[in-house]
């Protein structure tokens, strides 16, 4: 009837005929179990993390996350309930939710994580910056202001690694620590206070064995604390009282009993021995059973049981056993008869720790407690996703009644007959049919909840399998098709566009799915943009930026276009050439991980985490699609050629150098263009030259309609989006603007080279690059050479033979070049050692030599 659970730590408690319930939200509900009615609801100022009831004082203590501990008086509560009864006799929900104000707060402390209440004291566990801290307070009552110095003891527990959160803002802990209070049986403290999940009594032998002679002599209660890191430690309460000025010495006070190595979910105690002794001792019936076995459960199912036993010589020794139960454990409870109930997302199980304890040798009944069973066999109770459990105190003798809250917010009562051989959900046998029908209905509800949960899990797994199958198909298709067009391709083009008052060079990646498969959830397109390192700064590697774009749904024949900025960078510079590589990535974690997570039917935080060791190291599949280089030739613009009618705004054309300078100054982002344009005006342009045999080019271009020069220029600018103007006219030379604003002049002409070939002069196409910016000459030269290389490799594959060459001449050219290179080396060395005046001259000379080098007499044939 609650309608779902909020994320949090649900708790359920019951006392006599009342059940107190928190679902992990801000509300605490009070149920009347007899009538099955909701009698009251309280709204607290924060998420409720823990409830505890101090029955003899009729007070309910509630821990609110990040706020502190609140206390409600039950007397007050029942009064309001009786008023409510008058108003809502027809069994409706109480008309209003009672808000709990700050007056009820008895201990404001934002760092509290757990607490337990004793008759006279309140024990809290707070999370310090690096350590857990147990604090002891005089039990505050609602409405009263506790005396200053109400804290009467403090000790720090072991260090822990704080959860990675935003600094200054504590992360919500996934697992809360567990606190409980253990008393020795002879404790003079009235027995009645030991009630609820927070406290229990252990038999003398086990108590003394675990906590030592001092605690036994003092008859002091002991605080047991299970931490999320798996530690199980104990603090003797009477020893904890320290002066305010000095926290206790942890080494002396805290004893680590065990380490479960997984978050401790539950600490409890139970009685594995038959009750015969107790009957003789005339124990008060019911509640105050002295347990002889301590149990602790970890989140992944590791279970620890400790009993006291005597060895052959009669010495008291601890018997300690670890079991593995199916996990992850959501909650657990200890029932009568040595049974532990624990709930996982898929089942509610019961294990019997008493089963092994039948005395092995009947002739020695006083041998002492029997051992713990070597193995535990969980028996299913057929209920899934029970998030909190409580053993009811009102069960008739011999039976156990469990109160359980399911993940969907149903409060259920299980009545278990301890004597029946097969435990199960047996109905409380009542004569009247109405009750039976009610039970049947509840059983149906129970089953349907389980079915819906299982169905959901199956659906999720199916979905994941389908998705994996698709992914397999896609991978096979992509990896097997080595030749021809690939079934899934990605093409990249570069273009200029105007964004935010700025011209930006963008790359457009077009992902096309020509396969018969479907790219669905889990696929992402990764585009890596890798800039070349700057020529001026040899040490720096090029910067790489990776863009990740989820391919949401891309059916057969679908296309997706992605546009990415390539430049200018933050300092206004372009680092051409830029390499754009596209990759398809399939995330296994996203698809498979979700299906393997046990449940997402409610947002229990620890259920969303992935089970360890299920996924392989590799997190996904990576399929490279394409690789494209954007160089200077692709990013040239031709403002001078633009038809006057087009609306393209005039770019930085040939302008007055002073204007250029001023303009550059106005925009602090584009420093380099200032000196560049100045140099353009006053320095002779740098030139580079490449010669290619006309025959080779002609063969490669296969376009005889145009003059070879025009065809060559077209070929060079083929990938330039702005080159339509060049294509429109038959040009053999073109003036463009490089991305950084410098002019670049490409001139293509046909010349004859006479000295090279024996057979006479050969026709050669000379491509000359001219620019005022040396860097742009280099980039353009690099781009042209790159194209030439590709072309030559293709042509070489077709097997054209070069004409006979004059080797002598080639040698001479080679020698010349080597001399030049040597001179360069010498000049550079000199540059390093010389002073300023002479280094200027050296630099001049160096530039000249470089210029000669850039204009080789060699021809590509």
């Amino acid at each position, binding site marked *: 009837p609650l309608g779902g659970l909020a994320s949090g730590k649900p708790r359920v408690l019951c006392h006599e005929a009342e059940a107190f319930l928190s679902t992990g939200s801000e509300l605490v509900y009070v149920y009347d179990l007899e009538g099955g009615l909701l009698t009251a609801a309280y709204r607290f100022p924060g998420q409720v993390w823990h409830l505890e009831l101090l029955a003899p004082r009729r007070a309910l203590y509630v821990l609110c996350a990040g706020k*502190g501990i609140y206390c409600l008086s039950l007397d007050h509560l029942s009064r309001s309930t009786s008023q409510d009864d008058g108003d809502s006799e027809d069994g409706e929900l109480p008309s209003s939710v009672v808000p709990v104000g700050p007056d009820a*707060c*008895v201990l*404001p*402390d*934002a760092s509290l994580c757990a607490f337990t209440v004793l*008759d*006279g004291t309140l024990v809290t566990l707070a999370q*310090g*910056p*690096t350590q857990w801290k147990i604090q002891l307070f*005089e*039990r*505050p009552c609602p409405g009263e*202001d506790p*005396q*200053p*110095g109400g804290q*009467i003891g403090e000790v720090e527990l072991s260090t822990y690694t704080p959860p990675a959160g935003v*600094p*200054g*803002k504590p992360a919500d802990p996934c697992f809360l620590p567990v606190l409980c209070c253990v008393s020795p049986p*002879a404790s*003079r403290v009235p027995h009645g206070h030991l009630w609820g999940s927070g406290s229990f009594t252990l*038999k*003398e*032998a086990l*108590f*003394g*064995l675990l906590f*030592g*002679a*001092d605690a*036994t*002599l*003092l*008859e002091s209660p002991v605080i047991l604390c299970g931490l999320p890191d798996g530690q199980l430690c104990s603090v003797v309460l*009477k*020893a*904890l*009282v*320290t*002066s*305010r*000025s*000095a*926290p*206790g*010495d942890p080494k*002396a*006070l805290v004893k680590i009993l065990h380490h479960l190595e997984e978050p401790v979910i539950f600490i409890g105690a139970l009685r594995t021995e038959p009750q015969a002794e107790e009957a003789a001792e005339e124990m008060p019936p019911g509640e105050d059973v002295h347990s002889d076995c301590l149990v602790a459960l970890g989140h992944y199912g590791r279970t620890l049981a400790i009993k006291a036993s*005597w060895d*052959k*010589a*009669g*010495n*008291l*020794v601890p018997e300690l056993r670890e079991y593995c139960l199916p996990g992850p454990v959501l909650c657990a409870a200890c029932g009568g008869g040595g049974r532990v109930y624990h709930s996982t997302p898929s089942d509610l199980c019961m294990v019997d720790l008493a089963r092994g304890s039948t005395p092995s040798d009947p002739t020695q009944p*006083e041998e*002492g407690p029997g051992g713990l069973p070597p193995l535990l066999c969980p028996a299913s109770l057929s209920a899934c996703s029970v998030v909190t459990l409580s053993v009811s105190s009102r069960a008739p003798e011999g039976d156990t009644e469990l109160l359980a809250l399911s993940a969907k917010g149903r409060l259920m009562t299980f009545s278990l007959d301890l004597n029946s051989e097969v435990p199960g959900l047996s109905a409380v046998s009542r004569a009247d049919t109405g009750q039976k029908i009610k039970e049947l209905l509840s059983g149906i509800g129970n089953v349907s909840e389980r079915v819906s949960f299982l169905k959901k899990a199956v659906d999720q797994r199916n979905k994941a399998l389908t998705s994996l199958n698709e992914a397999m198909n896609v991978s096979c298709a992509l990896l097997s098709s080595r030749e021809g067009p690939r079934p899934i391709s990605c093409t990249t083009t570069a273009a200029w566009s105007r964004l935010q008052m700025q011209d930006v060079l963008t790359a457009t990646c077009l992902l096309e799915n020509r396969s018969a498969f479907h790219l669905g959830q889990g696929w992402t397109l990764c585009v890596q943009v890798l800039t070349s390192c700057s020529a001026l700064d040899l040490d720096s590697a090029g910067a790489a930026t990776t863009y990740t774009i989820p391919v949401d749904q891309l059916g057969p024949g679908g296309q997706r276009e992605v546009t990415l900025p390539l430049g200018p960078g933050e300092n206004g510079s372009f680092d051409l050439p830029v390499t754009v590589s596209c990759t398809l990535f399939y995330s296994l974690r996203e698809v498979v991980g979700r299906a393997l997570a046990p449940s997402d039917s409610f947002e229990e935080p620890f259920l969303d985490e992935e089970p360890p060791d299920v996924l392989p190291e590799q997190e996904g599949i990576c399929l490279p699609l394409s690789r494209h280089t954007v160089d200077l030739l692709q990013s040239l613009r031709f403002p001078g050629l633009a038809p006057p009618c087009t609306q393209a705004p005039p770019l930085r054309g040939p302008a007055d150098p002073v204007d250029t300078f001023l303009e550059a100054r106005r925009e602090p982002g584009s420093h380099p263009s200032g000196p560049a344009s100045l140099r353009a005006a006053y320095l002779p342009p740098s030139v580079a030259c490449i010669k290619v045999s006309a025959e080779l080019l002609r063969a490669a271009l296969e376009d005889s309609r145009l003059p070879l020069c025009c065809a060559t220029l077209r070929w060079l600018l083929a990938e330039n989006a702005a080159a339509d103007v060049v294509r429109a006219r038959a040009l053999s030379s073109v003036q463009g603007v490089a991305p950084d604003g410098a002019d670049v002049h490409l001139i293509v002409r046909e010349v004859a080279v006479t000295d090279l070939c024996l057979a006479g002069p050969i026709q050669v196409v000379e491509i000359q690059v001219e620019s005022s910016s040396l860097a742009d000459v280099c980039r353009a030269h690099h781009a042209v050479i790159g194209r030439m290389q590709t072309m030559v490799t293709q042509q070489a594959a077709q097997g054209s033979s070069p004409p006979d060459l004059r080797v002598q001449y080639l040698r001479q050219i080679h020698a010349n070049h080597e001399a030049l290179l040597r001179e360069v080396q010498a000049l550079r060395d000199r540059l390093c050692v010389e002073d300023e005046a002479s280094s200027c001259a050296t630099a001049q000379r160096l530039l000249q030599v470089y210029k000669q080098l850039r204009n080789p007499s060699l021809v590509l044939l």
Partner: protein
Amino acid sequence: MSHQMPQGPNCLDLWREKNDQLVRQAKVAQDSSLSLRRQQLAQDALEGLRELLHSLQGLPAAVPALPLELTVTCNFIILKTSVAQGFTEDQAQAIQRGLERVLETQEQLGPRLERGLGELWDSVLHVSSLLPELLPALHCLAGLQAALWLSTDHLRYLALLLQSLNGSQSGSSEDLLLHLKTWSPPAEESDAPLILQDAQGLRDVLLTGFSGLIPSLSYPIQLHGTYLELIIGNLPKALSSLHEVASGLCPRPVLVQVYTALGTCLRKMGNPQRALVYLVEALKGGSALGPPLLEASRLYQQLGDTAAELESLELLVEALSVTQSSEAPQLLIEVELLLPQSDPASPLHCGTQSQAKHLLASRCLQTGRAEDAAEHYLDLLALLLDGSEPRFSPPPSPPGPCMPEVFLEAAAALIQAGRAQDALTVCEELLSRTSSLLPKMSQLWKDARKGTKDLPHCPLWVSATHLLQGQAWVQLGSQKEAVSEFSWCLELLFRATPKDKEQGAPSNCEQGCKSDVTLQQLRAAALISRGLEWVARGQDTKALQDFLLSVQMCPGNRDASIHLLQTLRRLDRRDEATAFWWRLEAQTKLPQKDATWSLPLYLETCLSWIRPSDHETCLEEFRTSVLEPRDL
């Protein structure tokens, strides 16, 4: 982009208003008399400040918003520190974040993210010279940083920070005080956002706290735990620095501590009279009476004034029984926060009431005031075992004896005081309360009859309990019971091998019980006790056996030897006696080896009962009687 301020001036004003309101709320909390209400208000204000800081830091750092942001950071740290009563890592991170935000506005943060706090401060102070509007808030933040470093002993950083704050170049940590004195934070502008504690206030606190800390940091004297080990060589230096602190201005609780430490120091230097003057001064301070009283008792013990010593201990018990009416701490950074936490090993730690009570009782027993000792022990046991009190009382923690030993001491004191019946009750209580831990007695008897080899082990204090029970019976004149208790005790003792780890009763303070020497002495004591009983019953042969055994057990035990000699003489076994006497004479010429070993108090007391009354005269007599026949 980052220079555009998405929030208009309105938003900034709103946040500022929020800050001012939260600061006012914290001040209301400060004045609230109800501690709970106050704590709640403070916590709410803290939460509010955290949220405010979060929203402020959610935007790109911008110069106009920074003074407010830094002020909120300061308020947050001040409130957090005073609510938590100490500095934590969180605060350091908050400071660091604040500094990084300042640098962000200057776009200087860049890739050098992993700078230390020291370097960060350098760059920030460099930047702040360009942004004078940030200075007041930055100085406040610097004050907090200084307090944090002071409390965590990072004096070198602190010196550097103060140097940069003052703009001076040279200096070392010696000049720290000077740096602190010359630091003059800029005055807060009248229209600035409210702050809980301004830089000037922080400076004053630092000055006090710092002079209070210097001695403890330079020479680990009074306020740090390493006091006891390191004090010896440094007493005069410690003294002078303590004098320096005492002459300065410091709050009363600190002054009480300093006076107490001065008392300790002077006592150790052999100046009891001057020490007493300081302790009296400390007691006049009135806030924490425990440490000076404890120190006074030590002083009187050193002076040999037992009456005064016990009186101060009684006063100490009384002082500790009163609930410490500690004033609620201010919601500001205060000197107390900067002082190191008190440590059990330091002289400023006076323990709890029951610890004091135990000290009083044992001193009474040691100084021979058995009646008082018995009463105090009974009080102590009542205090420890009474569960009906809403307030728990702790046992004497580890430096003292463990709980069973406290019981044994109580029993010994009762016997000493002539209350044997009460002593028997205490012993029975001890055994019944721990019965579950002991090996099953029926099993034990059965095994003993069968002669089984692997016998259970018993903790030593169980045997000791039987020894004391026997002594109580002796006092009551019931020889039969006494002999049977002694025999039982011996039975258990001879099973216990000292190397065996105690089983069943793992207690953190049983080292004393486990020692070999204690075991030997216990055996000797039990044998002598039984021997004496045989003597009393006239069964000298049995007595001789026991005395012989005890001499074998503890060859150096003079008591056993003398009892043996006397018995031999009584039995008229002259030759043996003479031979033994010669051996004994030879032994006395050897140096006593285990004189330094201190036995548990109950055992010492017990041994004193079985010591032959006329120790020396007996020996002298024997010497003459042995030597005479030889002369003849």
